[in-house]
């Protein structure tokens, strides 16, 4: 195993790991050398004993930033772990290199064993007979029942869509939210939750701006294409069939993804994350870029309000890992199957030299999977511009794209009118800037405010 540089996180990155502000503040208070004993570090780990209301033993596995503390808190990372990381970042001199005490090496040993077991299982499943190329219709009654329900639901949906257009979209302006909500509920009953989500998203479009009729027609048009594709699903290529099923609402378990999806090993650079709220469910979109393959990937995680995320992706760090993409005609969403060490990424980000290149990639992607909505990329040597109230980035050829509405002061402050390398997500209308590399340091950008 290659010896990797241990990850050096700075204070801002450490605080970004905190599950909430009270943990961050508590962590800062605990970053006082007086509260710590027996601090030490090695190539793999960081440890110390913290005097709080009791003496807590805190360990951090530096390869993937997992921490383990003997305190009873259910938050992860807990305030003691944050304190340990902060002290190491601020006063590295007081954390000497040493060989880990038993309570640390035991824990590391257990983790390595668990990891080895997982790899073993993965290897053994790899050696099984090649999985079937098409999903065989299951003999069980529930699967057949679902297919029937979905078919009926989609039939009803198509009639509803045609009605909309027959009566005119102008009539939709005055409809209450329940109009859309009821149709969405019918699709949920028909066991097509993916379509239900699309219908709910339509509710926000009427009156949202001067171009709303076109926007609404585009959205329901693409929905019609989806139902059209679903009715002829057997005529589609296998990968596209997977996409259609996923969009309608079938889900795959992790084992199924691993069995059928494309595995890609690389050092994956975390470009940034965006969090959306849907009721009491929070979804975290983390965008990754492969340092060697230049592939992009999306990690989606869900949590209920109050609980914490299970995986840690620190923007600006590169995690050695094998990702497996969901089977698709154009891989985007992926899960992490195996991971190795993480390190801070200081080099230039691999990326595209012109916006034209990016738009060509977008066209190519849509040709494979026409329902794609988000397109991540790294644009090199672009200048952020703020002109008469509008935001742009312009490449070296003079081509420019608009940025998401709102203020992007951090982007302007860090770029200073000079070309920078920008990681962003294009949605067909504007770019959401995720982060930029400046002077060898990566800065994640917050969502536009205002």
């Amino acid at each position: 195993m290659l010896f990797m540089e241990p990850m050096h996180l700075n204070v801002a990155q450490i605080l970004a790991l905190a599950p909430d502000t009270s943990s961050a503040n508590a962590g800062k208070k605990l970053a006082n050398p007086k509260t710590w004993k027996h601090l030490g570090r090695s190539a793999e780990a960081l440890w110390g004993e913290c005097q709080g209301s009791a003496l807590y033993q805190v360990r951090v596995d530096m390869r993937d930033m997992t921490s383990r503390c003997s305190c009873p808190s259910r938050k992860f990372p807990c305030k003691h772990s944050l304190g340990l990381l902060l002290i190491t970042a601020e006063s590295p001199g007081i954390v000497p290199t040493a060989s880990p005490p038993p309570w640390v090496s035991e824990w590391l040993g257990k983790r390595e064993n668990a990891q080895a077991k997982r790899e073993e299982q993965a290897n053994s499943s790899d050696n099984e007979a090649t999985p079937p190329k098409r999903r065989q219709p299951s003999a069980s009654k529930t699967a057949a029942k679902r297919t029937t329900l979905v078919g009926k639901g989609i039939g009803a949906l198509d009639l509803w869509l045609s009605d909309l257009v027959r009566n005119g979209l102008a009539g939709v302006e005055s409809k209450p939210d329940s109009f859309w909500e009821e149709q969405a509920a019918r699709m949920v009953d028909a066991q097509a939750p993916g379509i239900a989500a699309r219908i709910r998203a339509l509710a926000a479009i009427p009156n949202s701006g001067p171009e709303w009729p076109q926007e609404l027609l585009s959205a329901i048009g693409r929905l019609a294409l989806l139902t059209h594709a679903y009715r002829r699903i057997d005529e589609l290529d296998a990968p596209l069939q997977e996409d259609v099923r996923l969009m309608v609402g079938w889900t795959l378990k992790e084992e199924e993804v691993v069995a059928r999806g494309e595995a890609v090993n690389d050092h994956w650079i975390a470009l940034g994350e965006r969090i959306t709220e849907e009721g009491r469910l929070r979804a975290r979109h983390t965008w990754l870029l492969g340092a060697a393959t230049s592939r992009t990937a999306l990690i989606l995680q869900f949590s209920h309000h109050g609980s914490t995320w299970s995986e840690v992706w620190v923007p600006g760090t590169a995690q050695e890992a094998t990702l497996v993409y969901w089977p698709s005609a154009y891989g985007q969403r992926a899960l992490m199957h195996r991971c190795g060490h993480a390190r801070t990424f200081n080099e230039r980000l691999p990326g595209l030299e012109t916006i034209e290149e990016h738009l060509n990639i977008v066209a190519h992607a849509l040709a494979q999977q026409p329902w794609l909505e988000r397109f991540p990329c790294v644009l090199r040597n672009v200048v952020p511009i703020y002109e008469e109230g509008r935001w742009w980035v312009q490449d070296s050829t003079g081509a420019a794209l608009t940025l998401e509405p709102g203020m992007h002061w951090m982007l302007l402050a860090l770029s200073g009118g000079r070309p920078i390398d920008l990681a962003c997500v294009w949605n067909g209308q504007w770019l959401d800037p995720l982060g930029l590399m400046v002077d060898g340091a990566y800065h994640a950008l917050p969502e536009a405010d205002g």
Partner: protein
Amino acid sequence: MNELTRNALAGTAKSSATLPPGDTLLDDWNNLGLETERELLLRAGADATMRLAGYATSSSLPLPQPADEEQLSACSNTVAQMLTQHLTTPRSPILIEALTLLAERRRRLPHVMLPKIMEVKDPLVRTAIRPVLGERGGWLSQFNPAWRWAEQGSDAELLANASEIWEQGTMEERLGVLGRARAERPAEAREWLERVWRVEKASFRLQALELFHKGLSLDDQPFLERALDDRSQNVREYAATLLASLPDSALVGRMRACADAMIQFAPSAEPGRLQKFLRSITASSAKGIFTVNLPESLDKSWQRDHISKDSPIGIGPLTWWFMQVMANVPPSHWATRWNTRPAELIATAVADSEHGLAILKGWSEAAINYGDHEWALELWYVWVDVKTKDTFFGQHRIRFLDELVGVLPPQQANDLASEQFRRPRLAEDARLALIRALRTPWTPAFGALFLESAYPFVTNKIAYNWQDALATAAIALPPQNMALAFERYGAFRDKPGGWHIADFLDTLETRQRLYEEINR
């Protein structure tokens, strides 16, 4: 809006025309024998996808002038982190101290901090921020009108933009621009204001006038004299205040003439019994007697010069007018006029049982108004030991103990404080006034004295007055005394009721860390 959308908006039921023919492969839906609505939907979907795939960029936009290379190097991330925490505390003195230190060490703030730091509203903090913004901060300020305060540019550049803002900006923007102009070209700023004076609202006139203390000179006199007749009382008052602060102004000349008429000094050869007694206290000789002729009535011209008519409770109007006039005459006038040393004149006033306190009050106000060190020091010595049952003068005594110290140069003030603190019987209110009034940072000599003398008051159940003193000391104590503070007071941090000490020591620790990090 394209054809398809128009059709869809109106509804296919209403529009009699069939769908327009498309011209791409994807528009060949007719062969599928679809009904119109379905055809429209599918074509719209395909159209949307194609538009997404065929997005055309905007053409060349004008590039902004990039920011200049930074001249100063950025402070460390640790310092930046600590400063960011203090940004949310209003008027944090620790923040101001740290920013000043950064400026001294020729450092700037990192770019990452700029958007947040530009949002600061407090003028004192803004003043401390300007020197450490670097080139990037100045460059960034051009993009947001709310950040104009951070603009750094040549006079010509700034003023070119400025007159536009003066014509058309909001009240806040215009005052901002006037303030900057006043700092760099006072005469031009005054001309701007004169041109619009008549049509502006009273609140604007007052706030604009408040900017005039910058660059105030006799050139402003004609304008300010006219303002003495303004419609608004607040404006009249402030104009008088400004004129009174110029020792050579006509207003002060008028006050001087009035004062000369009211008070005469006759040197005397024979010291009386009372004077002999007082000499022994003040250790300087009162050389004469004052004759005071209080005015019978309040002249209209005095009122115009803003002598207020109504006296506070406990003071007669005549004496009140007398004190106000005295307050507007620079004290050095009296030493020259009577060819006598200030200490001796002051001693004479101390000896005067009838008008003494009034004279001393007038002189004290004048010493504060005109920043006269010599008079301020001598008068301070009087007030510290004066015992009076009179509530009016008693209240002013405390204020003078504070404000007269403020007039002294820092070293002299610290020396005075050190000398006084060594007196065992120094009155507590004088002690606390000194602590309040000394400018930060204290000298190490005084810092050490403070720690010693505060000890008994602070470590037993802390008296209410000493809480404030401790809070002041937390900011004012210089780094050289911090080790002593931790040593002497550390043990009391965790005792019950010891949270004042804990706060005090915590603030010292934060400041010490900032010092160490910035100096690294």
